[in-house]
């Protein structure tokens, strides 16, 4: 039967700032995303050189999930944490870059390392690899953050036992404008966000 589910933790990344469960944990002077993400990577002492090979969308999703999942995931056991992310611009930021690399016929050298990121779900793959999550993965596209759908779909995964925890949220990146809002949801009772739903946390 349908069991109630609870938000366990949430994180927001926007405007050169990272906010975890309502607390600002990293904030720097305005800069571009490449610089911001690198500084955040250094600040949290993440050891993962593959980070620098990722496109911006993957870096954004990676940073958010890193801070939410690291306390949750343990290397010596299976972690059935599903990933359900969505955005508006899909992988368009990288698509535009890739399109530029094939538009000049005299300088036509399509890059495989760019092409591979022209799919929005690659960021799910990056998170799965990082945390060794052999779990349910889906990437959705909507014109705006769709709370109702994301929480309904997460609840389905939890209530059908397809996942123990769902990492769900919004990761939008285009042309250096970005916003990530991710949260972990599970059946474990958590009174902290009892009266709040994803939407109020997203708009905080």
């Amino acid at each position, binding site marked *: 039967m349908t069991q109630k589910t609870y938000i366990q933790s949430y994180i927001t990344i926007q405007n050169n700032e990272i906010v975890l469960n309502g607390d600002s944990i990293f904030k720097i002077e305005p800069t571009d995303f490449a610089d911001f993400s*690198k500084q955040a990577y250094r600040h949290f002492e993440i050891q993962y*050189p593959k980070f620098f*090979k990722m496109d911006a969308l993957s870096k954004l999703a990676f940073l958010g999930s890193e801070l939410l999942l690291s306390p949750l995931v343990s290397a010596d056991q299976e972690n059935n944490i599903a990933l359900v992310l969505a955005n508006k611009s899909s992988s368009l930021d990288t698509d535009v870059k890739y399109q530029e690399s094939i538009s000049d016929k005299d300088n036509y*050298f399509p*890059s495989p*390392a760019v092409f591979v990121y022209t799919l929005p779900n690659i960021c799910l793959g990056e998170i799965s690899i990082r945390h060794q999550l052999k779990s349910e993965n889906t990437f959705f596209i909507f014109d705006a953050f769709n709370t109702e759908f994301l929480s309904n779909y997460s609840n389905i995964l939890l209530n059908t036992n397809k996942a123990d925890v769902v990492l769900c949220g919004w990761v939008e990146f285009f042309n250096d404008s970005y916003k990530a809002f991710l949260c972990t949801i599970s059946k474990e009772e958590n009174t902290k966000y009892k009266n709040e739903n994803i939407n109020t946390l997203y708009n905080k």
Partner: protein
Amino acid sequence: MEALKQELKNKIITTLNLEDITIEDIADNDPLFGDGLGLDSIDALELIVILDKDYGIKLVDPKEGKTIFQSIESMAAYISANRTK
């Protein structure tokens, strides 16, 4: 040859986004894949693009890459023997 090797190290670091690795960290005979620099299959494909774009070499059989991209040494030797630009 020495200049070409330096050039290749530079290109590999920038094109493949090897943050925290400097030219000095890469020895001429270090394996580029596996335990060496830790490059992967997508990097191998990027190296094929570098050969084409910067040295005018089109690999007919991508499997050739395995021997060519063993190390900076083998890459430089192959490029100087086959380059068209």
